[in-house]
């Protein structure tokens, strides 16, 4: 079931969503078995920013019907801390490493791209554009022009594959995807979490320390499917589809809608080895599936345009 993705040869199409699996902490909890039975065919690390971040004040989680809202706030050790402490450990994983990065300005993103471009341990970069550009006040990934300008700035800085992690909190996600493709992105990944909120039932005040958070889990799966399908009509570059994947059948749905790879996130919280099971189920389904050209398969079939 090996798949080719942006020049990387992967054992199967199931990877993790950024920020939903900490391979270093999991190694502490589960020992060598984690490495021997690593659940993903590539590992996407948690977002790295230039400066260290503590993350949002707790509480950070709220369970909802079919999912949860998180307000984590991208805690990380910063670029220098990541290079010193995390990268050497993550480089020992048995799968390619994709580093997710975020900057609060084009210059910050450029600095991160440059720094990781030099590191051979890094197979690809994923740009988290779900944050405001402090120079323009616009969410980088919410506006096609903003996304295009960012890619135009950082694309020349690296030969490594650049994946743009799209935000679903945008008016026209396919237009943003197209802008990323036009400016040289190698792939897009979606969906990130959807903005959501919960009130403390006892006080009526916002529950989460960050006031709002991101909704994930099976509750968002139909939205992910629709957005992946829409983006697949708009771009030619490969798509990493994710959002509420719990079973191989959910992964197959995203592939039928146009995804080349599938990300697993929240389901790993329920079962740390969920990726292994989902890849196995997907493999069985693909072996018995008539879908040859999975990309755009739905759109390609007359009478089944969505």
């Amino acid at each position: 079931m090996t798949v080719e993705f942006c020049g990387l040869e992967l054992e199967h199409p199931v990877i993790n969503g950024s920020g939903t699996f900490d391979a270093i902490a999991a190694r502490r909890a589960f020992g060598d078995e984690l490495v021997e039975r690593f659940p993903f065919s590539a590992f996407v690390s948690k977002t790295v920013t230039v400066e260290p971040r503590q993350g949002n004040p707790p509480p950070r989680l709220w369970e909802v019907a079919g999912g949860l809202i998180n307000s984590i706030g991208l805690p990380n050790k910063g670029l220098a801390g990541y290079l010193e402490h995390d990268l050497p450990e993550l480089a020992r994983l048995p799968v390619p490493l994709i580093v997710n990065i975020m900057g609060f300005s084009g210059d910050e993103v450029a600095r991160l791209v440059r720094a990781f471009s030099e590191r051979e341990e890094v197979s690809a970069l994923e740009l988290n554009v779900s944050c405001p550009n402090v120079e323009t006040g616009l969410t980088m990934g919410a506006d096609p022009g903003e996304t295009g300008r960012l890619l135009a700035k950082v694309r020349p800085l690296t030969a490594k594959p650049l994946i743009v992690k799209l935000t679903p909190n945008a008016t026209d996600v396919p237009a943003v995807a197209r802008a990323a493709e036009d400016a040289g992105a190698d792939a897009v990944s979606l969906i990130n979490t959807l903005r959501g909120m919960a009130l403390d039932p006892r006080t009526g005040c916002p529950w989460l320390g960050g006031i709002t958070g991101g909704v994930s889990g099976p509750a968002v799966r139909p939205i992910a499917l629709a957005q992946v399908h829409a983006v697949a009509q708009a771009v030619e570059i490969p798509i990493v589809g994710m959002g509420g994947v719990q079973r191989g059948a959910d992964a197959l749905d995203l592939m039928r809608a146009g995804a080349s790879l599938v990300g697993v996130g929240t389901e790993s919280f329920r079962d740390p080895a969920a990726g292994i099971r989902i890849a196995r189920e997907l493999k069985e389904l693909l072996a018995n599936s008539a879908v040859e050209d999975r990309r755009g398969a739905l759109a390609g079939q007359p009478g089944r345009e969505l």
Partner: protein
Amino acid sequence: MSAPFGRRAATVVAREEHGAYVVLRCHDPGGPAPRSGQFYMLTAADRWGGGEAERPFLPRAFSVLRARDRELHFLIEDVGPGTRRLCELQPDDQLLLVGPLGNGFVRPREDRTPLLVGGGVGIAPLAIWQDELGPETPALLGFRDAQHAAGAVLVHDPVLATDDGTVGHHGVVTDLLEDELDARGDELEVYGCGPPAMLEAVRLVCAERSVPAQLALESGMACGFGACFGCVVPTVDGYVRLCVDGPVLDAHTLESALVAGVGH
């Protein structure tokens, strides 16, 4: 010893009620023995994360109450959709669990002897710790009322306090703790687990008297193995994840034990 990677099935072999609490005894042939103070993530095998109510969705974290002969005992109080589902489980029903996780208690420093202080469902890790330290280890336990104080049978020979005075001292358990520490605080190391307000009071009482304390905390937790970053608590070194850096923390590293409730 590491936890096995992934979820595994465990069978409920007995269900006991103690007042407001349920003890589930589960046969876990696949796991290593836990250390005192470690915890597990529990999910009922059926009717969890789908179907009619759609909640519970995430597994729930429980410190192990007791472990012997491949049996794990968990103490559960019905306070939300997850704990309600777990309380419904009957012998032969299946659980899915991940664990043991987290760090656990460490023995008192050389010149000190242990004193257990806890309350409510938080008595669980103190029971297994008392099993390990020896039944003579003194325990001060606080409960809301007599119905909850029925859980005290799970700990050997505790001194009790209840909020409503129906059993033992009429007041909070930290009243008993203050008396004990004032009498012989320089000989003691405190092990605490209980609701946030109690733990914060224990932390302050111990800090005022420079008595070392190890506190087992609880916080909203989606995964239990460091993935979600949801369970952080504030320490002097910044936020730490309770699942991988706890759940037992040295009291003097905490800025506050007042962790927000979790709606189990």
